């Protein structure tokens, strides 16, 4: 009967392992910000189609300030205000693709007199 118990435990462990694998999902990008896209239907709100600024396309959210953006993203004054991943150097943008880099853009905020710069991930000029 030890073999029966061992078989039962092995089955349970296998099921547990499958479950852990099932829980592993990409946490870096989402339909809200970061997913590749060609059209709006692929995103929660807005798609910046593939071009030099957003290679591969980029799902994002419109924003007026940082409060409108998810964690790790900033509200940059690009195309009227969109959420982009914050960065400090190019390596931090590699997860978006090889054509992406860290660029300095104007930060969008509620205070029109406050002019600040922010570094965000965007397509690198070729």
């Amino acid at each position: 009967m030890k073999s029966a118990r061992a078989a039962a435990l092995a089955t349970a462990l296998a099921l547990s392992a499958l479950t852990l694998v099932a829980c592993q999902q990409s946490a870096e990008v989402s339909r809200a910000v970061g997913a590749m896209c060609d059209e709006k239907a692929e995103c929660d709100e807005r798609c910046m189609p593939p071009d030099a600024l957003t290679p591969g396309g980029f799902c994002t959210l419109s924003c007026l300030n940082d409060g409108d953006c998810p964690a790790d993203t900033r509200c940059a004054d690009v195309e009227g205000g969109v959420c982009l991943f914050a960065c400090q150097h190019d390596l931090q943008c590699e997860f978006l693709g090889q054509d992406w880099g860290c660029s300095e853009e104007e930060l969008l905020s509620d205070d029109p007199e406050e002019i600040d710069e922010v570094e965000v991930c965007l397509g690198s000029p070729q």
Partner: protein
Amino acid sequence: MSRLAAVIGCVMAVSAAAALADEAAAGTPGESRPSPAGGADPAAGVLAQAEPAGADREGAAGESAGESAEDLAEDPASPDADGGTEARPLPEVPQSSPFPDDSEPSPEPSGDAAADTSAADGEGQADPTPQDPLPGEQELGASLGLALGGGSTPGGLRIGGRYYYRLSSRDWFDAGVGFTFGSSREACFRDRRDDVVCDHGFASGFAAEVRAGGIRFFGSDDTFSPYARLGVAGRIIAFPGDEVRGIAAPAFVGAGVRARVHDFVAVTGGAEFLSGPAWMSRGMGLEPHASFAVSAGVEFTVVD
């Protein structure tokens, strides 16, 4: 939360598997364990003969088994005659049994035990009695519950239908169909490697399934019967909002309690964990499939 559900499911799976292993180990003659009320498990029948009258064999075969035990206790060859607790194999005495596998020919009984048993049981066959906790050979049931999905696994409202066919006093063949209804919210996207990833919530998508397996009741009286089940299922999966479809072939384990509310009606409540591979469309390919569900239901004995 998804991980919490998975962990709860895994704990339940381990517990159910261990319980099944324990029961399998305890099913060998010579180990003293209570037998199901009114049950007629062959191994339990041998044990019942070695116990004093009034042990938990009172029920379907109560009187005849009790008399046999008394007679055997007077027999020096009986395990209890000298007060010992070691159970040795005894001559098989026919028991009242509604189950085909319990009426198989056994070694020829001898002495008073055989005579008494024959007198009490007639031909050694008897119909199920009202004390039998599971009086029929077949049962039908329906259930309603909630399933937690996530990722590429549908979740939501779950309804099901079941069919049981008795295999032995405690074990039944368990077949059924089930449907899970969740939201159609869009949750798939292309990650930066252009792979489709779905991050559905706990209650999203649709699934239809057929399943087959076994269920064992551990009931020690005729009112409440804990149970454990396991088996395999075939599922059709759909996430309409994302136009994603697929099929899955998971295994499931579950446990719960069943309570009789009428001679032929019982209510159940239980939980179940399901896991296995799924093949999804939109280029997703092979995906893990895991779900935890709780449900309540009602079951009816099919009267022959």
